[in-house]
């Protein structure tokens, strides 16, 4: 009985200390930001019902394919990532094949009309220094309808959410700015395996050049995200990409406008990078615990047997 009281006292002081230096201190140092569940409440809802067939024409006429690849329908700009980044202001515009699934529709509609507004970086751009993606000025008809049509078209060509892998979501929404070294990703794409050293050096030099361009565009080089799942945690990453400005007021990182589903996948991809063995950990944990439990029972029985003679 006495031993249980002692154990209680030791446990009590240990837990109080733990509570103060871990959950409580983190709560004070990193104020909690609530997730808004990727509702994008600041953006207006689509008023018109889009028509994908009309959207196809508007999209082709709207100039999007001048800058963006749309691989699934065979529309390619013919430029590699570096050339494209240099031509279009610092980063390689993402492929739009699956944009209709990866990005939220309200966000897409607002992005098409006013990219700096949708991505919340208006503080960085002006008439003198415009956003590298120009706003869509309309094809002559009802602007609301045309935008809704483009969005409907992008959705119609995109793969359904089930077919979008975590890597696809990350590469499309984040990959043009953030490398992910531990997953073999550079801002120019997946790093190929090179047979000759000189080819690899050339590739690496191109990556450096690309990074120089991003740095000039963003004001600083976006960090490699390989370990961010560990250093920031899932909740921070989710709320950060939903609205970077609440965490880092004035930051150059744009709101990328992904759907809740894509955000989850992006976090999963970052977890694959930083906490690769989490599934293995769970399964081994179970076996170790069972082993220890049996060990403890035997240890207890042995102690009882030995101490029978002692009191």
């Amino acid at each position, binding site marked *: 009985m*006495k*031993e249980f009281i*002692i*154990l209680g006292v*030791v446990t009590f*002081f*240990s837990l*109080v*200390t*733990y509570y*103060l*230096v*871990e959950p*409580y*201190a983190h709560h*004070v*140092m990193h104020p909690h930001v609530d997730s808004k569940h990727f509702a994008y409440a600041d953006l207006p809802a689509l008023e018109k019902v889009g028509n994908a067939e009309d959207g196809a024409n508007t999209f082709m006429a709207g100039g999007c394919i001048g800058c963006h690849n749309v691989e699934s329908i065979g529309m390619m700009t013919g430029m590699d990532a570096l050339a494209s980044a240099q031509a279009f202001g610092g980063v390689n515009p993402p492929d739009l094949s699956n944009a209709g699934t990866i990005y939220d529709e309200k966000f897409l509609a607002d992005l098409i009309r006013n990219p700096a507004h949708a991505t919340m970086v208006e503080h960085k751009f002006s008439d003198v220094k415009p956003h590298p993606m120009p706003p869509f000025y309309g094809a002559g008809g009802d602007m609301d309808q045309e935008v809704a049509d483009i969005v409907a078209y992008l959705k119609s060509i995109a793969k359904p959410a089930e077919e979008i892998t975590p890597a696809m979501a990350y590469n499309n929404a984040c990959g043009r700015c953030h490398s992910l*070294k*531990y997953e073999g990703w550079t801002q120019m794409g997946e790093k190929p395996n090179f047979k000759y050293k000189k080819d690899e050096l050339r590739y690496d030099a191109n990556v450096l050049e690309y990074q120089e361009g991003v740095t000039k565009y963003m004001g600083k080089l976006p960090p490699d995200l*390989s*370990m*961010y799942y*560990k*250093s*920031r*945690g899932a909740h921070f990453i989710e709320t950060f990409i939903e609205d970077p400005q609440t965490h880092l007021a004035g930051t150059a990182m744009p709101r990328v406008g992904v759907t809740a589903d894509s955000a989850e996948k992006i976090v999963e991809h970052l977890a694959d990078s*930083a906490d*690769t*063995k989490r599934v*293995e*950990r*769970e399964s*081994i*944990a179970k076996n*170790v*615990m069972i082993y*220890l*439990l049996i*060990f*403890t029972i035997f*240890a*207890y029985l*042995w*102690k009882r*047997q*030995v*101490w029978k*003679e*002692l*009191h």
Partner: protein
Amino acid sequence: MAHFEKAKSIHDWLDQRLAIDKVNKVMQTEYWIPKNINFLWAMGMVLVITFMMLLVSGIFLLMYYQPNIATAFDSVNYTIMREVEFGWLWRHVHAVAASVVFLIIYIHMFTGIYYGSYKKGREMIWISGMLLFVAFSAEAFSGYMLPWGQMSYWAGMVITNLFSLGSLEMNGIVEWIRGDYVPAQAFLTRFFMLHVLLVPLAIMALIGIHFAALRIPHVNNQDGDEFDYDEESAKYLAGDTKGSKVIRFANDFLSKDLFVVAVYLIFFFYLVFWNYGFAMDPVNFDPADGLKTPAHIYPEWYFLWSYEILRPFSKDIGLMAFGFAQVIFVLLPFLDRSPNVAPANRRGPFAIWFWLMIVDLIALTAMGKLPPEGIFSTIGLYAAVTFIALWVALPFITMMEKKK
């Protein structure tokens, strides 16, 4: 030369040469331990086991770790955590053990303080124990440098800066310790050496001394009773095991130790698999960057109380208070002027001293991590002053204590 006979068995062969029966008696079956003890007396064994886990997991990590500022971070976070089979397990075991060992050390220390196990012949146990505490602190700090993350770099910067001794501005010492103006390659290599060679050697030697120091005074017991070990052990050997006040180290004491160790291992591996975050600070998963100071710099939890004694004062006074905190526990056997060896709760004013000290250390620990603003720095200041006042008061409180 001694006379050797043809051996009757392997046991006999060994016994003639190594006297294993005698050794077994001295070290185990006739190493006498008081019966009147509780599970807190198993903490020493728990520490031995934790140290073994640190040693073994460290050896495995050492096979892949690279002490180079360009590759250290990736060798840990990529190679060991992703590429090496079970590398993640060794790393989690190592990190959790490094943190938990301090929890157990603190429990072990305060057990000693509570039961008065540091005086009347047990001073050397206490002093060797405190040297172990210092050695473990050096081991933990040097190990924390190795992943070369943001906290490694900045904690290394802040702690080595202390050696300039405030207004004395002895920057030469700081540079000498770092091997450079700032933490860089020379710094990492030497802390690597300290962590994997010199400090572990010192720890192993100190554990030997600690055990040797236990031999003559024997361990204390729950009531601080003194008794005649020869008489009690004779009773035991004559068959009166129930009446004797002593038990054998093996298997009597060992069987209880093993059970406590087993329960401890459940707790330990629960932390390893599900709750390791406290032992691996998130900030240290950002690679070291000398141009980017983290928003909050703090040491690992077990150093927080002494860090907080440094913080609330002006530079020089803080440093003196910090120096005071580092050495004062060693002097406990001499500052306690009472001859009584008894649980703190039966020692009158010392009981208050003991519990106040615990609460104060926890307050210091918490404030050491929290940002030094508003109410937190006020509490920190009061707690630091209380810490010093408690030690100043100790000789007087214990002098007044009635002799048992």
